[in-house]
């Protein structure tokens, strides 16, 4: 049998095997303890789950807003109105020069004549405009920033740089409101981060307190195991694993809560998207987000129980 083979291979291999087996047993024992006290376990898990679901849900919400705003990002562009009498050749030169910049994706030149034609077509002033002696419209360069320069700061830097060009009369960043939206979302992101930190602390305290009570309830057992030669590590282990389980189960619950909330708003969100003729689908936490959520839960559980164990376990010695 494989077990025998491992045991006979080397004392170190056997030791590692036995150690692993002991850990696995403790892992299951600590899960069993949670299972055997369903009411208090469910309440603890629920509190942890809600505390984790709130920041997770807000992050998902932000990610969705981000993706909507990101869709609009592509249309962000800078309109450069050149001086009225700029000859077409100069306009082309300026366009070529701007096109060579690293933070510019492309430049489209709308000559004065083209602008006039477009205006005549769309404005309905066709005949009236015909009567004008000269074209009152300047040539326009539509500059699309490179992907990296689309966020507020680099886009503004680009705008400032273009504004100083000699032939430019007026430079206008379209979709300034988009930048404002992004600024608002930056604030929101920080707000969510602070909420996440606070609720993470709350999870630490909840797990710590739960483990503290458990240590208290198992005082006799701890004393007896110490009397028969248990090391501090042995005594500590089930409580640490207990904390990990609480955190992990809380993470699972949080994931379910966020998933449920997404299901609830999926219908209305699709309707809203339809009204805006937008093709937007709700983004869930995703695999990465899910792993992060569960990992955060488990880590907070471990840390919380570690704090409780460190404080309360060493105080229990057989008398």
């Amino acid at each position, binding site marked *: 049998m494989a077990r025998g083979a491992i*045991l006979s291979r080397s004392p170190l291999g*056997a*030791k590692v095997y*036995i*150690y692993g*087996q*002991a850990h696995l*047993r403790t892992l299951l024992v600590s899960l069993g303890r949670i299972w055997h006290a369903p009411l208090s376990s469910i309440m603890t898990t629920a509190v942890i789950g809600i505390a984790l679901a709130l920041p997770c849900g807000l992050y998902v919400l932000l990610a969705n807003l981000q993706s909507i705003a990101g869709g609009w990002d592509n249309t962000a562009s800078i309109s450069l109105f050149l001086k009225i009498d700029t000859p077409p050749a100069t306009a082309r030169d300026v366009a070529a020069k701007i096109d060579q910049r690293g933070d510019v994706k492309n430049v489209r030149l709308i000559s004065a004549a083209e602008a006039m034609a477009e205006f005549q077509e769309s404005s309905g002033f066709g005949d009236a405009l015909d009567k004008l002696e000269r074209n009152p419209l300047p040539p326009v360069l539509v500059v699309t920033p490179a992907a990296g320069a689309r966020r507020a700061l680099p886009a503004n830097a680009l705008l400032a740089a273009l504004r100083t060009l000699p032939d430019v009369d007026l430079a206008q960043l379209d979709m300034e409101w988009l930048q404002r939206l992004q600024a608002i979302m930056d604030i929101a992101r920080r707000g969510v981060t602070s909420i996440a930190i606070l609720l993470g602390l709350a999870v630490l305290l909840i797990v710590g307190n739960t483990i503290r009570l458990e240590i208290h309830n198992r005082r*006799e*057992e701890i*004393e*007896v*195991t*110490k*009397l*028969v*030669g*248990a*090391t*501090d590590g*042995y005594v500590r282990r089930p409580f640490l694993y207990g904390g990990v389980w609480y955190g992990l189960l809380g993470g699972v619950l949080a994931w379910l809560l966020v998933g449920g909330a997404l299901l609830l708003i999926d219908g209305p969100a699709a309707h809203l998207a339809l009204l805006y003729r937008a093709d937007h689908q709700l983004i869930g936490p995703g695999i990465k987000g899910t792993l992060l959520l569960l990992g955060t839960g488990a880590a907070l559980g471990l840390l919380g129980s570690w704090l409780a164990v460190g404080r309360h376990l060493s105080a229990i*010695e*057989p*008398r």
Partner: protein
Amino acid sequence: MISFQDVSKRYPTGFEALNRLTFRIDRGEMVFITGHSGAGKSTLLKLIAAIERPSRGQIVIDNRNVTNLSRRRIPLLRRKVGLVFQNYQLLHDRTVFDNVALPLVIAGVPQPEVRKRTRAALHKLGLLKRENALPITLSGGEQQRVSIARAVVNRPPILLADEPTGNLDPALSEEIMQLLEQFNQVGVTVLVASHAIDLISRFNKRIITLQNGRLMRPEADEQPRTAGAL
């Protein structure tokens, strides 16, 4: 095997439980410790198992000075010392088998070996049929036997029993003492604290008498060493 050199124990309350105790217990010896309650019997056993630490003096167990044993090393000492208590100290949410297996599990003994040795200990103490019972369903005598099985399951060289018959009737008490004697006969050094003078004087073993934390030396010296002593 166990040597006390000028050992005193003063509790933080100021109570002097043991006062400059010096004695030696040889390997394979069985010794009774007696005296009135409060004479220091329990404290003496607790010092050997490092449950209490001495205020002064030196304690050597199995050729190792354990006077200032570091906290980290205490578990290793306790694995060499089987402990039996008056109130049994069993875990009530675990079966008899799990209670007895506990020292082996803690010591990291592989599962098949745990089963084998636990069954052997249960068999030795006539508890094999009760292995799946919870301690609370057992009689006092049976619970004490479970506690003895747990104390000997990892074959420690030293067995300490603190008033092991305190809660038992005379017939059961005699039976428990005989069980302890049987372990002594296979080479375990056994220390039994008991105030049941009538009972322990029926065994032909050395008796250490404590009075107010001091050794009643003349009496202790007059006690004949048994043939088992080395």
